[in-house]
């Protein structure tokens, strides 16, 4: 029996093909974006884990410190432990290859290994020396100054077996001989393997290791081993997956953010389905009333309409999955695995197509469609048939939309959600609050529309303008009397515009704050940095002297950056030792809030970045223990500063304290102030000719660093813009479709207007004005909601996921541009839709009476 009604639905969908197609498209785009982002994330993480396994090999567990490493005496203790069957010591370090023509040369990861011990654990690192020309057994090929390079490294640095290459190391350079290849290493990874002893000696890490790979004896658990070994502070024993987990943690906030953005598109799609479904239900009011009169039950009608939405969602989701896979493939080819975020050093991950994820997104797509059509279905089922048969009562059906409490309740829910803490580092409640704010704003929209347009209509009624522009009067009055219809048309636009304003404001605040921060932290005229991973290279005392005594140099401040591993599953924290005046730390650091003064009887002072507060619970006035030079040392936290350069935490301390505790007098960075009239370019040219570290030193003017940082910033936010644009596009399509179906539904009204002497042009103008007024209203609501959401992003989401605070900077030009574009689009769309609706003769429109 129901198939008859089903036929009705199919016929209707076919008659209004465009409308149906738009609904399907809305779901398709949302599902496609969500699925694509998720596929890319999964692929990139999987690729990274595979690369890790390649390096870590078949170890059961890993003892790991930060890149600064630990004393190799630990190795003897570990290797002799009865729970350890096999231990393989590793020194991992990133080096720069000298003579690279690139502006930003790639890093070569060099692993120093003990060949005999590493062979059973990491077979891929054993290499193939048959190409070396020397008929030695391959595993001995790397003895001495030999190095085995991965195929990609050979290609990247344009080397062949037998060539020599120069890398930076410590404060100078080292020449190595390419003795063979590592054929088992994945394409894309820039890896070199050499003898451990030689690596320690020549790469400036005598007596140090960064890792020990372990094969455990049967039945030994990590916990018991950990307890027995009593590892020094900053060194951790972890299962083989810890590094992968750390990476997942490291990039999780970023990935969640992208996923949320992708879901925004789906969310907007849901609103679009709502708009069109509400419209279609209204247009079929009389039909439904007749069906109800003819005996269709209320529940049956509702189920019928939900089935319609299910069909839309199913078709849209299916298309979305295919489109998503294609987008993911294209994006990976164009942008790489981190979509520009800079978290993964992975060249080209392979895509997998996990069924479960696909099913998840399909369900989300269907849910969005059903959620979008639930309200209209419910209303249609509960409209008394008699009222529906009475003409002109459409706004009665929409009257519930004018209720004020659902919107207010939603805003209240949002306020409650905002006070909740994040869920395992992801600001889930804040994201939910954003959704609640949006839906709340949309629910309040009809009220606001009436509030805003009533004074306009009243004024036009009496003003001369009203007489001269009757079209404006008509349009304004419709807004007053039928705000529900406009609200339906505009739901998608409010959602997408609001989110665009929010994201735009967030990005502009971030960028502006970052820019200001860069100016603040780069007061000198020239900056020098040696080495990329802070442990592999430093400025020699001779170089420091050369810089200091250069005739153009007025003053130099040297500093040292050292990574510290504070937790096994977190990225390393950076300790920055530099010149800081404890009585005036604000001169050296961009402080947030007032710092405490230091008393000489207290432990040495540190100033921590915001991330330290969020991630490690550091607080002003508290004591922070840091594992330095093999021991735990107490420091008092005197203040908090803003550090956009190191998302995972940094600790600033005075250079003299650092040197006293660690005995390390090396420096990695220099801030150089020049004498008046001296040009930075001249000084850098001189230094690049005279310094020992000339091959590896980076000398940059602050402007250059700023430009580079902002470029990286823009690149990593490019994808967010693409996703937002998609949301806006869906919204616009929605407006077009809703306007056109509303105009169709009003063709009788237009026919009557034509009879009493309204020209076709005037009707089009009325429609365009109605479109403009409705859009203006959507813009007002969207703007308010967007700014509130921007505040949520800035005050809650960003601190919770990235541990960054920032000032609010509203991107006025962007918003003005968006508003103009929206107005033009919506007005045009409305007029075009009207052209179709008024295209038929006025006779057809009132046919039944004449």
């Amino acid at each position, binding site marked *: 029996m129901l198939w008859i009604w089903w036929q009705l639905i199919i016929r209707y969908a076919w008659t209004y093909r465009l409308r149906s197609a738009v609904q399907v498209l809305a779901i398709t785009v949302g599902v496609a974006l969500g699925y694509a982002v998720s596929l890319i994330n999964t692929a990139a993480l999987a690729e990274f884990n595979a690369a890790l396994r390649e390096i870590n090999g078949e170890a059961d567990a890993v003892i790991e410190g930060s890149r600064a490493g630990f004393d190799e005496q630990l190795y003897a203790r570990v290797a002799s432990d009865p729970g350890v069957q096999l231990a393989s010591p590793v020194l991992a370090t990133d080096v720069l290859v000298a003579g690279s023509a690139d502006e930003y040369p790639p890093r070569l990861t060099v692993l120093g290994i003990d060949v005999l011990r590493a062979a059973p654990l990491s077979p891929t690192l054993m290499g193939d020396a048959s190409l070396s020309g020397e008929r030695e057994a391959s595993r001995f090929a790397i003895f001495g100054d030999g190095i085995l390079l991965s195929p990609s490294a050979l290609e990247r640095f344009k080397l062949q077996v037998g060539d020599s290459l120069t890398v930076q190391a410590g404060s100078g350079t080292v020449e190595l001989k390419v003795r063979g290849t590592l054929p088992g290493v994945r394409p894309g990874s820039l890896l070199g393997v050499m003898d451990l002893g030689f690596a320690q000696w020549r790469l400036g890490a005598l007596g140090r290791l960064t890792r020990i790979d372990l094969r455990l004896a049967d039945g030994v658990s990590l916990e018991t081993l950990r307890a027995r070994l009593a590892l020094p502070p900053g060194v951790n024993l972890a299962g083989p997956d810890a590094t992968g987990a750390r990476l997942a943690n490291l990039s999780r906030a970023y990935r969640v953010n992208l996923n949320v953005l992708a879901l925004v598109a789906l969310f907007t799609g849901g609103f679009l389905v709502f708009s069109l479904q509400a419209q279609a239900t209204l247009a079929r009011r009389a039909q439904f009333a007749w069906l109800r009169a003819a005996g269709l039950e209320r529940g049956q009608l509702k189920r019928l309409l939900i089935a319609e939405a299910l069909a839309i969602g199913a078709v849209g989701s299916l298309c979305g999955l295919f489109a998503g896979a294609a987008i993911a493939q294209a994006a990976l080819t164009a942008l790489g695995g981190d979509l520009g975020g800079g978290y993964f050093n992975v060249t080209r991950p392979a895509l997998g197509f996990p069924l479960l994820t696909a099913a998840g997104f399909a369900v989300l797509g269907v849910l969005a469609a059903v959620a979008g059509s639930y309200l209209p279905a419910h209303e249609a089922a509960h409209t008394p048939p008699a009222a529906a048969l009475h*003409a*002109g*009562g*459409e*706004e*009665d059906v929409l009257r519930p939309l004018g209720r004020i409490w659902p919107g207010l309740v939603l805003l209240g829910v949002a306020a409650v959600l905002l006070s909740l803490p994040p869920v395992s580092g992801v600001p889930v409640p804040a994201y939910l609050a954003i959704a609640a704010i949006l839906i709340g704003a949309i629910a309040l929209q009809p009220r606001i529309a009436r509030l805003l347009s009533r004074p306009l209509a009243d004024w036009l*009624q*009496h*003003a*001369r303008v*009203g*007489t*001269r522009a*009757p079209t404006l*009067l*008509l349009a304004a*009055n*419709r807004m*007053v*009397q*039928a705000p529900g219809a406009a609200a339906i048309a505009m739901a998608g636009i409010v959602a997408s515009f609001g989110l665009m304003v929010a994201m735009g404001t967030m990005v502009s605040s971030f960028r502006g704050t970052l820019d200001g921060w860069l100016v603040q932290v780069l007061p000198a005229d020239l900056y020098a940095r040696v080495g990329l991973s802070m442990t592999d290279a430093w400025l020699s005392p001779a170089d420091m002297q050369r810089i200091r005594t250069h005739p153009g140099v007025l003053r130099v401040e040297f500093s040292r950056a050292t990574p510290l591993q504070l937790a096994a599953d977190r990225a390393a924290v950076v300790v920055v030792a530099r010149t800081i005046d404890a009585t005036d730390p604000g001169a050296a650091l961009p402080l947030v809030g007032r710092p405490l003064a230091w008393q000489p009887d207290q432990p040495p002072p540190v100033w921590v970045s915001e991330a330290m507060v969020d991630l490690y619970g550091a607080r002003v006035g508290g004591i922070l223990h840091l594992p330095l030079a093999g021991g735990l040392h107490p420091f008092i936290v005197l203040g908090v500063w803003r550090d956009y350069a190191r998302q995972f935490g940094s600790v600033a301390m005075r250079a003299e304290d650092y040197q006293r505790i660690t005995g390390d007098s090396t420096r990695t960075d220099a801030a150089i102030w020049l004498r008046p009239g001296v040009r930075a370019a001249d000084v850098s040219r001189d230094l690049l000719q005279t310094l020992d570290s000339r091959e590896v030193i980076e000398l940059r003017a602050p402007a250059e660093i700023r430009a580079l940082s902002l470029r990286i910033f823009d690149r990593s936010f490019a994808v967010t813009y693409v996703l937002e644009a998609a949301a806006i596009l869906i919204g616009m399509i929605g407006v077009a479709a809703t306007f056109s179906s509303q105009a169709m539904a009003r063709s*009788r*009204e237009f026919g*009557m*207007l*034509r*009879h*009493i*002497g*309204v*020209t*076709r*042009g*005037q009707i089009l103008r009325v429609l365009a004005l109605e479109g403009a007024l409705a859009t203006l209203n959507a813009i007002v609501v969207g703007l308010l909601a967007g700014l509130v959401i921007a505040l949520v992003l800035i005050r809650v989401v960003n601190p919770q996921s990235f541990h960054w605070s920032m000032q609010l900077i509203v991107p006025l030009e962007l918003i003005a541009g968006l508003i103009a574009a929206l107005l033009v689009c919506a007005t045009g769309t409305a007029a075009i839709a009207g052209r179709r609706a008024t295209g038929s*003769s*006025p*006779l057809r429109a*009132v046919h*039944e*009476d*004449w």
Partner: protein
Amino acid sequence: MADSALDVSQLSRRFDQRQILDHLDLCVAPGELVAIVGESGSGKSTLLNLIAGLDTPDAGKILISGQDLAVLDDDARTRLRRARLGFVFQSFHILPHLRVGQNIELPLVLLGVAAGERQQRVAELLAAVGLADRAASLPRELSGGELQRVAVARALVHRPVLVLADEPTGNLDAETAAMVMRLLVTQIRERGAAGVLVTHSAAAAALADRALLLSQGRLHPQNLAVG
């Protein structure tokens, strides 16, 4: 001599192969009220459409106060309708989003009449149709008969030369229909407009100055008493 309010000559219109109007003539003097009766499908509405300039004849001429419709383009015809014609439909076609007063005011707004004068004329017509206290009501708050009275007021507020009414009481019960029809006729006469009134009711036709029967594509004088 003053132009006729309406002068139709040799008007023909065919749909598909059927000749609906066949060299039809009709002349309505200023202030004259003509009733047209005829079987369903005889072409009454077709005739009104042609007079209103909403449809184009296959042959023949239509003059409204001397103005030939054939020489006007669509916009000019629209402006002519706006200034000289008033309409009452079977369905009321009151805009649901405008208040009663605003609906009546609409033709004046379109004609660019100043707000003060609009107010005055609307008030006058509302009083004339007995709805003086309903100006601020929304259409959905009115009954069918009241809505049709609003339509009558709207058809006359701009002082048209000619009012076209197509079964204006077809949607109402007999008693209300008679009342609205009397009101329409009185108002047309009071304002000195001419009128063409399509109706099924003999009683209604009797209120007119003349009644014509549309049959075989032409108009035939009708004896009112027999109706």
